[in-house]
């Protein structure tokens, strides 16, 4: 999970404006979080009229921000706050996707509860779901705020601080139509002649990551279901031991107290599985991150394709010019055919054509140069973000696994405790 840099980090970064000290300073210190504390503190239900004038219930989330004084005195500033709903977060994210296509944009928590095991509610209004979403939204904001590029975005800053007029502001950027065409482009099929091997591998990796995380989430849901059953059935022992103890003399006490331990055992699974939801949420985040990674790769493919197309167009125009100059027709063209059939063109006509072609070639050269630059820059930026992402991912997932192991250890220790207690009771029977 992202964390905010401390004051020492802020010190260091002032000596290193270009951020060349890379690994030494956590990137967060160079970003917005250096100046500002961000949290999603609360969630509330609201009712209001929607776009089609119908009454609906929805949840809003309180975003609190507080200036952080780099002198690290006790913050006395009270936080600013505003309410936002999920759809506004989505708007923000879509804007970021379009504006920074080379960035692996942090994902939002899921819109609807998925990979749910039966005891957990799939209802969006369920308080547990809302709570987990609140945490997920906070995590999203922190990740964006700690990103070296995204954190400097004004729209993002205003999202955190400007309650009114933000929606209009973001719409005015004109990102919406770009978002629509981006989506179309990402889904289009086209073939790149010389794919960049690194990006191909990256895309392959993103597919793998998506696949394994979703498999794990599916398995986890089924495992949770079964484990729940195992623990809960033990609760039945509690009742039957109690009933049995009623007809026993010497064995009664031991049975009765053992029964209580069985009840405790059965009850313990609720907390255990609730904790496990955190692990599931961490997996989900990276499931969605994989999607974002794939999008970056696809965008690169698109640029590559456009570059190749531009190069190809230019080449064919140049060829046309050559043909026109030499008078030979090497390539088939309708003009060529008609001139053969209806007679040659006049020198004036040819000159005019030549001028047009030269213009087009000029434009084509410029376009090619543009595309090349665009592509190179994209590759550079995307690759840099990819490296940042890899470091983050490795760290996060490692931590996730550690906390999962710690959870398992805790669960085992609880189990040993309960059964040891029960055993003591049994031995006193």
């Amino acid at each position, binding site marked *: 999970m992202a964390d905010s840099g401390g004051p020492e980090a802020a010190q260091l970064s002032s000596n290193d404006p270009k951020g060349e000290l890379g*690994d030494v300073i956590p990137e967060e210190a160079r970003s917005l979080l250096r100046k500002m504390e961000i949290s999603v503190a609360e969630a509330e239900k609201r009712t209001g009229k929607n776009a089609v004038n119908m009454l609906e219930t929805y949840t809003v989330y309180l975003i609190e921000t507080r200036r952080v004084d780099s002198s690290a005195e006790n913050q006395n500033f009270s936080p600013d706050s505003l309410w936002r709903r999920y759809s506004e977060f989505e708007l923000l994210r879509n804007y970021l996707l379009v504006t920074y296509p080379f960035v692996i944009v942090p994902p939002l928590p899921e819109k609807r509860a998925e990979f749910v095991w039966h005891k957990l509610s799939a209802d969006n209004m369920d308080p547990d779901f809302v709570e987990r979403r609140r945490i997920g939204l906070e995590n999203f904001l922190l990740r964006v705020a700690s990103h070296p590029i995204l954190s400097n975005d004004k729209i993002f800053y205003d999202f955190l601080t400007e309650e009114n007029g933000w929606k209009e502001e973001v719409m005015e950027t004109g990102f919406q139509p770009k978002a629509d065409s981006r989506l179309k482009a990402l889904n289009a099929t086209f073939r790149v002649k010389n794919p960049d091997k690194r990006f191909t591998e990256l895309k392959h*990796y993103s597919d*793998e*990551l998506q696949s*394994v995380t979703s*498999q*794990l989430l599916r*398995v986890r849901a*089924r*495992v949770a*279901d*079964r*484990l729940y*059953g*195992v623990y809960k*059935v*033990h609760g*039945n*022992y509690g009742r*039957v031991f109690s*009933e*049995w103890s009623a*007809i026993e003399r*010497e*064995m009664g006490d*031991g049975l009765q107290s*053992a029964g209580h331990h069985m009840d405790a055992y059965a009850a313990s699974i609720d907390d255990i599985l609730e904790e496990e939801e955190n692990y599931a949420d961490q997996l989900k985040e990276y499931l969605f991150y994989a999607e974002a990674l794939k999008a970056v790769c696809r965008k690169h493919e698109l640029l590559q394709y456009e570059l190749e197309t531009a190069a190809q167009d230019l080449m064919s125009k140049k060829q046309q010019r050559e043909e026109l100059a030499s008078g030979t027709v090497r390539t088939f063209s309708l003009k060529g055919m008609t001139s053969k059939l209806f007679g040659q063109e006049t020198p004036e006509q040819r000159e005019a054509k030549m001028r047009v072609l030269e213009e087009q070639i000029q434009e084509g050269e410029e376009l090619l140069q543009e595309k090349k630059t665009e592509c190179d820059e994209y590759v550079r930026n995307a690759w840099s973000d990819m490296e940042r992402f890899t470091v983050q991912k*490795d760290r996060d*997932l*490692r931590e996730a*696994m*550690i906390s*999962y*192991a*710690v959870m*398992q*250890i805790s669960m*085992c*220790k609880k*189990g*040993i405790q309960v*059964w*040891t207690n*029960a*055993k003591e009771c*049994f*031995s006193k*029977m």
Partner: protein
Amino acid sequence: MSAGTPKSLPSSGQKSIQDISHPLSAEESVLTPSPDVGNTTSSLGEKDLSLPNGTPAGTSSPGSSSSLLNRLQLDDDLDGETHDLFVSVDDPKKHVSTMETYITYRVTTKTSRTEFDLPEYSLRRRYQDFDWLRNKLEESQPTHLIPPLPEKFVMKGVVDRFSEEFVETRRKALDKFLKRVADHPVLSFNENFNVFLTAKDLNSYKKQGLTLLTKMGESVKYVTGGYKLRARPLEFAAMGDYLDIFTQKLGTIDRIAQRIIKEESEYLVELREYSPVYSSWAGCEGELQKPLEGVSSCVSSSSSALEELTEDMSEDFLPVLREYVLYIESMKNVLKKRDQVQAEYEAKLEAVVLRKDEKSGVPADVEKCQDRVECFNADLKADWDRWQNNKRQDFRQLLTGMADRNIQYYEKCLAAWESIIPLLQEKPDIKSETD
């Protein structure tokens, strides 16, 4: 010299190393545990001990029984009964003949009793033989509670009769059965039991159809003559009620245990899905490869531990529960028989009372009936107490066993997860990564 009746052997003090409140030790300090039980014998012999009722105690005990005691597991039997007969069932072997395939078990006997020609016997018996023995005991000792045998019928195709697990479960139950009979003050002296333990050719003995009588047994014929019982004595009514409720509870526990095993098995199936996914994820990662492989193997270990748990519970826990259900069935039958005997007596008595004009005095056959009732009641009461005691031990053992297995399961899982924490925390050298 060994005693003719169970209670008079004073050296039964040696039998239990843990035994503190033995009647004989009332005048002596607590017998200290001694590896060489022989010493205790002689020290006992030198003191002037007498039984609580004043009977002077014998000064020596047969050396053979004291050395036997060393090697055998002793119950904390506190009623001062003799243990001069030790039996065990082990070493199952498969026999294949043209007609059939079956398992035999080695039955070993070690005893100091004079009813036995030799001090030691070792021969092989099959389930059929145990079944025969039990039927004979039921016939000849109808006033007693006969311990149960493991289930006779096994559904072919569902259970493998020759699998190690099944045979071992059965062996344990047969061993328990035989030990319970050997520990019983009356049943252990039954002629059929003696034959079972000693006869080389049991089959020919069975065919002879000899029905040897014990003092209490055959002469009394129990007819289910449709006599109506007037008033069941409270204690036997209580026994009946207890058994009814206890059966119910056992049935519930059996169902719960089965359900747990089923849920655990299904949990196991899903749990197994984890490992390959983690492994395949490890395959496409760099720095995370080792940690992911670690998690994969951890989950595998947990799965194996769980499998062991469910198997153990199936093999060890459920059969014992079922055995008790059978036990209770046969006990209820004995209670019914007792009711019948009492009813018969009451009917006959009533008939006599009505015939007031006959010479006074209770006729012989009515007296015999009364005797029967009283003997039956006494036997049953004694057996009931013994049964309650055994039941308590059995269930204590059964349930602590269940707790133990669960503890072991969690300990195995704990060890696995704790072992990968250092692996997960170990960060590879960053410098080398950027080359």
